[in-house]
Every structure is written in C-alpha cells, then in structure tokens.
C-alpha cells in the first residue's frame, strides 16, 4: 500500500514539475487507440468524405492524445459484430460518422462514439456547418469535443481562425483567413501590399493590418462580420501592429514618426500614443507580458538582434536571452518565451533559423526545430502549442509545435510565401 502511495506521489510530482523547456524523449503511457469509420450512404461524394476523414485523422494525431489508425475505413452506421469491435486492430474507441447534405448545402455529420472493447455506444451527436467549404472546422470541432470527452488537455486552439499575409509578387500580398491546416482558406484583403494582420480580440471577429497602398503605411481595423474597414493610424517609414492587449483596448505598434523605429502603446479609446522604447537602433516586434504591464521585444542594442524586456513606463531594459547572435523574432506566454535564432554568423550555413524555448523561471533552453528556416513563432492561447512559419526548399509552410508531445507538423502553402501569421 505504501509503495502504491509513493508511486502516486511520484506521478503527481511529475505532473506539477512539468517544464515545457525540458524535452520529453520518452512516452510514459499508452495512448487510446482509435479508428474512424465512414458510415455515409454511397450517394454522398466519396472524395469529400475522404478529405473529411483525412482532416479528422490529422486533428487526432496533432492533438498527440490519440493513437489514431491512419486508414480510411467504412462501416454501416448501426454496425455489426466486426464493425463494432474491429478486434484485429486492438482498438479502444471507434468514431463513426454518417455525412449528409441538406438542400441548402448545409453539411451534417451524425457522429457516434463506440467503446471498441464492449461494442457499446458511448455517445452520439449531430454536427452541422452551413457552408460546405468550411468543413475542416466541422472536423476540428469533432476532434476538440472527442478530446474533451477523454479528459485530455484542451486542444481548443484547433478551432481558432488563423490569419496570415502571403506575398504573391513584388510589393503585392494578400491577407487570408484559414484553419490551422490551411485546408480552408479565404482571401479577405487583396490588391497591393497588405501585411502584418493581427486579430483584434479573442473572439476573432475583427483584425488589424497594415496597408502600404496609400502615401504612407496605414493601420486599418476590419470587422469580419460586416466587412467595414476603419483607419486607425498613419505612420512614416513603417507601421506594424505587433500585439493586442488581453482586453483588446491597447495595441503595441512599431512605428517611426522621426524616421526611427520604436515601440509604442496605442490606446484605442483615447487614441493616444505612448512611446515605450527609445533607442537609436532597431526596436521591433513588441509583445505584451505580465498582464500587459511589460513587453518583450527584439532590439539590436547589443550590435545584433536579441530579445529584451521592459516595463511600460520605465526606461530600464532587461536582456532575456543569452544564447545566439541573431534572435530576430519573439513571442511570449506566461513564463515562456519562444524565439527564432540564426544558427551561424554568415548567411551561408547549412542550418539557418531555429526556434528555441526558454522559461523566465529556469536556465533551460530547449531547441524546438532542427532544419530549414523557422521564423515568426506565435503561442496559441495556451503555453503548449506554437505556430510558426517554416521555409524550406522554396516552399512556405505553416508549422505547429506541440511542446508536451515534442512533435511538430507542417502544412505547406501551395502558392506564395507566408509573410506573417496570427491566431
């Protein structure tokens, strides 16, 4: 009995001692094995169903909480002995769906979860989405709820919209809203150079972006429900909205009113600008930390780009990273800072840019990527998932890192080069 208690204490300690900067190299337990069965009637477009299954399998894999069977399987909706157990696969769970369309194009997925050990139905639910091209969100929703059902750490970030800008040609870029796999994409700003989109709030119903299409760089806010656009700021030289405060009332912008790029806080309500950094070199890429009272940012004040922090209203600057000679992009969440670092001092090294994670509470540095150019890291609304831009072999991809599982995934863009991302 004492032994059992000790084991339990050890397990509980390991749970609370979790540190995202420490790489997990060994699995500690077995993941529930799950298969997905398509039980739709034959008249429903099979290509569409296969695409749906592919996304759902991908979601469960990226969650890192399931051992998912990577096979397109079919069954009847009510199932028979074989279909309800699939004993040859030694499954724990079966997720079965019956997809259909309403006359107005609404996609309906009737979803049943079975215990593959007993063959019993655990639960059943009907999911709907009114626009067919947004079916990836239907799959993400099912994955998120299934994940919740087994009590695994939340993966709600899968349902977040991603917003990104991509270069299409010289001085031309488009802003696109997508899901995290880029399976759904919608161009929402086009014509000219439109860059650095940033969600205006957690509800993701508005965003900021910089237009380079007037005489001076201009920051706009767009309401995605109405399509209306409001001018927020006009800047000289450059203008980027790097971050939005938790309550959505303040922006961190880099602008250069006197030809000098510095970071400012812009108050949406009072329309006032407060200068936070003042250095004659480069200060850029501000991000709110510590309940919006401080910022992390990139500065070349030591002669090379590196990561610093500063309290808003104070002049004192703290160096946050003591590794690397070119750390040019940063994102922070709670005590964690993720940054992109160039591996060699020249531009000709085989290795290029990698992502690193540090904790402000410990001295550990964890390398998160190993190949290619890995840039522009951004935390999800949790400290366990990071999105970034990956460039490799002339292809641009959206990358996802799942820190606890020590896994990363890439979703390539077919055409164009990703300029910046937010989610």
């Amino acid at each position, binding site marked *: 009995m004492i032994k059992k208690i000790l084991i339990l204490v050890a397990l509980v300690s390991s749970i609370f001692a979790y540190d995202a900067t420490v790489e997990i190299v060994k699995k500690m337990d077995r993941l529930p094995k799950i298969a997905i069965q398509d039980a739709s009637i034959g008249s429903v477009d099979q290509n569409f169903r296969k695409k749906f299954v592919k996304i759902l399998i991908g979601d469960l894999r990226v969650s890192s909480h399931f051992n998912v069977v990577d096979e397109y399987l079919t069954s009847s909706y009510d199932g028979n002995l074989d279909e309800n157990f699939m004993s040859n696969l030694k499954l724990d769970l079966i997720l079965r769906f019956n997809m259909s369309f309403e006359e107005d194009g609404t996609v309906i997925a009737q979803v049943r979860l079975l215990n593959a050990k007993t063959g019993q139905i655990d639960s059943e639910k009907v999911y709907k989405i009114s626009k067919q091209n*947004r079916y990836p969100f239907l799959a993400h929703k099912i994955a998120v709820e299934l994940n919740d059902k*087994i009590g*695994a750490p939340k993966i709600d970030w899968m349902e977040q919209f991603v917003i990104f800008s991509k270069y299409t040609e010289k001085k031309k870029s488009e802003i696109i809203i997508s899901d995290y796999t880029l399976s759904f994409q919608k161009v929402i700003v*086009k014509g000219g150079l439109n860059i650095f989109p940033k969600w205006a709030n957690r509800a993701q119903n508005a965003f900021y972006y910089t237009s380079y299409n007037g005489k001076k760089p201009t920051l706009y806010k767009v309401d995605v429900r109405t399509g209306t656009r409001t001018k927020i700021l006009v800047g000289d030289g450059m203008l980027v909205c790097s971050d939005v405060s938790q309550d959505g009332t303040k922006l961190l912008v880099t602008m250069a009113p006197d*030809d000098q790029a510095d970071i400012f806080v812009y108050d949406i309500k009072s329309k006032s600008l407060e200068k936070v950094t003042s250095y004659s070199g480069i200060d850029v890429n501000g991000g709110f930390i510590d309940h919006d009272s401080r910022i992390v940012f990139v500065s070349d004040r030591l002669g090379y780009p590196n990561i610093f922090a500063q309290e808003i209203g104070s002049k004192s600057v703290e160096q946050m990273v003591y590794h690397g000679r070119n750390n040019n992009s940063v994102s922070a969440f709670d005590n964690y800072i993720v940054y992109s670092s160039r591996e060699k001092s020249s531009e000709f090294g085989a290795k290029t840019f990698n992502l690193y994670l540090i904790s402000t509470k410990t001295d550990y540095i964890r390398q998160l990527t190993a190949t290619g150019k890995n840039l522009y890291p951004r935390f999800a609304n949790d400290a366990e998932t990071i999105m970034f831009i990956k460039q490799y072999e002339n292809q641009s991809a959206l990358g996802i890192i799942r820190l606890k599982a020590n896994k990363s995934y890439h979703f390539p863009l077919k055409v164009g080069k990703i300029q910046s991302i937010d989610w």
Partner: protein
Amino acid sequence: MKLLLTSLTLAMLIFTGCSQKNPDVDMTAKNGNNNATQMETDKKADDLTGMDTANGTSNDMNTNNNNVETAMNDANAVAEAIAALERDINKIYFDFDQYSIRPDMEAKIKSNARLLNSMNAQDLSIKVEGNCDEWGTDEYNYALGLKRAKSVKEALVSFGVDKGRIMIVSYGESNPVCSESNKACWDKNRRAEFKLLP
C-alpha cells in the same frame, strides 16, 4: 464504458500532465450517453459573413494609383524627366544584416546628392525606399530596411540635400529585384532605392 473513459482520462492526465491553461471558449454542453443532441458549428461559418458579402476588403491604392496615373498622363513631360533622373540615380547596397553606409557606397551617395540638387531635380521630393534580402523575420526586416533608408537620408543631407525634401519608407523583403537563392542575388536585394515625386 464510463469506467473505460475514466481510466483513459486518468491515463491522459498522467501522460500529459494536467495543464488546463486554455481559456474557456464557448463549448457546447456535454450530452449524456446515447442521447443524440444536435449542435451547430455554424459559428465558424457565419463569422466571416461580412467577408462573403464584401468579397474581400479592397484598398485605396488602386484608386490612388489610378489618380496618379491620370495625373501623370496629363504631365508626360514631368514623368519622363523623373524617369530619366531615376535611371541615373545609384542604388545603394548594404552588407548582410547591416545598415551602416559601406565605404564603397559613399561616392555613389555623393553623386546622387549632386544629381538631386541639380536644376532638373531640385524641385522634386525624394522618397528613399529601404529593402532587405529574404533572410530573417519580416517584422525585423521592415525595421532594418527603414534603418537603411534612414542612413541614406542622413548621408544625402550631409552632402547638402535639403532634409525637408526627403521621406523614407521600408519595404522589408517585399520588393526583391532578384528572386534566386544565392549570394549574388541577396547582395542585390539589400539596397536603398530612390523615387522622385513632383
């Protein structure tokens, strides 16, 4: 089944830790076993309604461009003179990750200053555009491009060009002159260019 799910839950907690830092998003209520419940994911469909009807947000630029084009058509002579001047202005190149003026570029800036103060150009405004190669994060590159444009502006002023005539802008890595992935190409992209405005 509940037992299985409970044990799976425990396994998950042990396996992945129990971090629950995510904010609560409007999750629909959990349904009981075997109770078919209808739920809507239409939020994701309707969230972008404005974008559907607006068919994308258009930009002022097209209108502005058209205006500029019309104006330029009306003043062909000025446009031609500007084009001729712009052809003669030297581009200023920079070292990797640097924004200080290279010694070999000083004479070129001096020559540009002389041209910009000549009879044909002295009434024109000058826009210095800073550009970067494809290396690094774009946000930093926009700041780097701006510093390059600023260095050039300051050098022009030191050679006698009126500060009030010069504005600067950065295009980061969005305006490459060369798209191959090699050193010669990156060298060409790390530059400041000049545009003259009536």
